[in-house]
């Protein structure tokens, strides 16, 4: 049976070329397709908004003539197809129009404010991974085979509560505890290292709890596998068993979940930035939606969407490097 499957797999492999390349090719195609959908939706977004973008741009008090002049200036009098193609041209050349409110190129807003958002998200992800993997592994080891039911109950209930706390509430409570009550840390803004502490914790708290739960459950699954029994038959220390034999098998599922969490955290930055007056894109998108600054909204949504798609792509590529079987299975 086994050898037959291997032979068949080898034959199929020769017929279709390198499965890694095939997988990467398909994954890249999917990425591009998603980007096309994203750009199209961002374009349609402004078309679907009730009200007149030209009026929004020219201002409430502008004369009808001024609004019409503005319409022609923005190219809104052109047929939809022409506008769509122009939009694509803009996306590809980095010219996404000017902000209605500040009259500066939208791309400048993106380049000045995006680093703050990315910094926040990446730091938070680092915290999530650095905390969740060892803690989840430790609790998985402690509660394996129904050991320590008290610890297990405590861990499950506390982590469930923490995982439910949304980042904006975590942010508010943290501000109250550490900035209002004891005034150890700055309330808002982005300056020295201390100003990063509260926003990063607020963003990382819930995902950390969620990932810790998953790592613990995965640890139990891995510990039940036959190959762990084989490893134990080699009489090694518990530390080596967990580091060398359990941990690598956790990475696939942990990374997959981390990719999803990171996508969610990109969205979470919007809320956290608004609490801590963080000078990123999250505070900008809210004000630009409320101020009907459509080019800016469009650009920021494009940025967030592309960031999420890129994260998914990177996670998938890391996954096949860590665990080549996934690529073989998928191809």
């Amino acid at each position: 049976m086994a050898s037959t499957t291997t032979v068949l797999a080898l034959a199929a492999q020769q017929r279709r070329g390198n499965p890694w390349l095939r997988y990467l090719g398909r994954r890249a195609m999917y990425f591009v397709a998603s980007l096309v959908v994203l750009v199209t939706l961002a374009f349609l977004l402004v078309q679907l908004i009730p009200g007149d973008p030209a009026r929004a741009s020219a201002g409430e008090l502008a004369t009808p003539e001024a609004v019409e002049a503005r319409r022609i200036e923005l190219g809104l009098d052109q047929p939809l197809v022409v506008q769509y193609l122009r939009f694509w041209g803009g996306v590809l050349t980095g010219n996404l129009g000017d902000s209605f409110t500040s009259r500066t190129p939208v791309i400048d807003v993106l380049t000045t404010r995006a680093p703050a958002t990315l910094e926040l998200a990446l730091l938070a992800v680092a915290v999530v991974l650095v905390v969740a993997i060892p803690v989840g592994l430790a609790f998985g080891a402690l509660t394996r085979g129904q050991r320590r039911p008290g610890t297990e109950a405590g861990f499950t209930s506390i982590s469930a509560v923490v995982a439910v706390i949304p980042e904006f509430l975590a942010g508010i409570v943290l501000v109250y505890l550490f900035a209002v009550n004891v005034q150890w840390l700055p309330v808002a803004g982005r300056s020295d290292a201390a100003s990063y502490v509260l926003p990063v914790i607020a963003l990382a708290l819930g995902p950390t709890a969620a990932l810790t739960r998953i790592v613990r459950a995965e640890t139990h699954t891995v510990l039940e596998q036959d190959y762990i029994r084989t490893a134990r038959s080699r009489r090694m220390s518990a530390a080596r068993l967990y580091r060398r034999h359990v941990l690598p098998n956790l990475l696939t599922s942990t990374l997959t979940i981390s990719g999803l969490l990171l996508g969610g955290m990109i969205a979470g930055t919007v809320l956290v930035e608004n609490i801590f007056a963080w000078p990123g894109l999250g505070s900008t998108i809210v004000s630009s939606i409320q101020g009907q600054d459509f080019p800016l909204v469009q650009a920021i949504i494009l940025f967030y969407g592309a960031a999420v798609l890129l994260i998914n792509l990177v996670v998938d590529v890391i996954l096949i490097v860590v665990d080549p079987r996934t690529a073989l299975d998928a191809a």
Partner: protein
Amino acid sequence: MSRTTRRVLAVLRSPVGILAVVACLTLAFLAIFAPIVWGAAAAVTDTEQLSQPPSAEHVFGTDGSGRDILLRTLVATRLSVVMALTATLAGVVCGVVLGLLPLMLGGRAGRLIVAAINIGVAFPSLLLAIAFSVILGQSGTAATLAIAIAMIPSYGRLTHNLAASVWGRDFVSAARVLGVPDWRTVLRHVLPNVRDPLLVNAAITAGTALLAFAGLSFLGLGIQVPEYDWGRMLNEGVTRIFVTPAAALVPGAAIILAGLTFVLLGEVLGQALTPSTRRRVPRAMRRAQRTSEAPADATAVDEDAVLSVRDLHVSAPGADGQWQPLVHGISFDVARGEIVGVVGESGSGKSVTLMAIAGLLDAPLRVGAAGARFDGEPLAMTTDARASSVDHRLGQRLAIVFQDPMSSLNPALSVGSQVAEPGILHLGMSRSEAKAAAIERLRAVRIPDAERRYGQYPHEYSGGMRQRAMIATGLMGTPALILADEPTTALDVTVQAEILAQLRQVNEEHGTSIVLVSHDIAVVTSLCSRVLVMYRGRLVEDVRSSDLKAGRATHPYTRALLATVPTMSTPRGEPMASIPDDADFTAGAAEVEVVRAADDPALVETFGETALAEGAS
């Protein structure tokens, strides 16, 4: 009372169940009655009492407009919960329809929908909700719609995955073959089978929707003044957090409690709807696990044997809170250089015995023995005692070959590094020395191109090669004993013989003793000098292979086992002999000398008198 009803009642009576019911009822009660009872009082703006701290009159104080924070929080329950539920209902219904459509439509349209769902899922729902709120404007209704739309892709994907797995099952194929239209099959056969997990997820999704709402309103993109939900209250409260922290913290607490209520509801639904396979071990039994089962009595142990076991017991916690014995006090010895076979039907305790000796049984099982010696030194016989500690003696002298080579090698590590590991662990080898030694051992078990194979992963090996690698791992040290647990069961017949020959070669070259567990009596008699026969956790016969081949087995079970082995003279066309499930040989153990198989009615009925007479002669 049906099984499901009983399970639901049991879950509802558990602490978590009671908590979930109380929390849901409270939430429902507040959503219905709070606006009626306190609606007017919550709207009163008291200009005398702006931003007051908690007092007798205002339990949590007042906000910036002098309104009671607690009353406003209670009244806001309705809007917050109703919007979340509305969005969930709309999102879930659309998601289910979208998830089922690909099956009903099939073909290109179906694939297109699946692709669309997959792209939608890539984007976090809060981002989608924000994007849609741009189009829909900023109001409660718009936010409801935005959140509903944002949850469609993920719910659609869930539905599609669940439904697609049911779609492949036999009863669905049968319905389709019979010409039932696909849409009918989906509604009648698929939907009822995916309903339970969808319900559980709907409860959790409602919690997520509630949090998403709070988030949108908090950003100022949801509910607008003068209406208020918890998120809107947060939005107003957070700017004044230095003056009246309660204005932000109280609605914040309400959001978390409501969110937890939905999570709890999902948890309880999940427990009630899916039969649990996990059984908890009662506390008293867990304590008993740590004590050894049999009284120590090491006197009877054979000092010269490579392995000597006296009165080995293994038990598992049963459903009724009693210990169910898996191995009932067996004793045996293995001499140096000897190959001993252990046979018996599945569940007779052969593998459990082997794993107990290897020290690889883990809680919740319980292990104990009156005495055990391995290679001249005592062997601790408890669960966990040797599981994860460095033990150079066992690491070098005891090798184990496991049943299924597919699952017994770590898929994340190269085969070579697993073979080399004992060298690094127990023989003080450096990494490169261990590698060289491992390649040499791989060559010794006839793995071709060992240098290249060293770096390959288990999935690149065939089953027989993996088992060879496993033997090579055992040969890194100088094993006195190899415990082989059905080493050939999972392999092709042609490979089986090679692996057995390999084991025999090791035995001949190094004088290594082998205990070979197998349910294949032919394999055992060909390789082993002695055979232990196990039946229902007991050792019923300890017999020389030559005696067994000559038909001199004494126990009726052994003879029955022999009679099931087809030979060249077995008549074709007739059903193969087998031991019936309800045949009971336990009584035979005491009457080994007198009971002849032909006298056993259960056996006569199964095999016929002649077959038994032949087996006995």
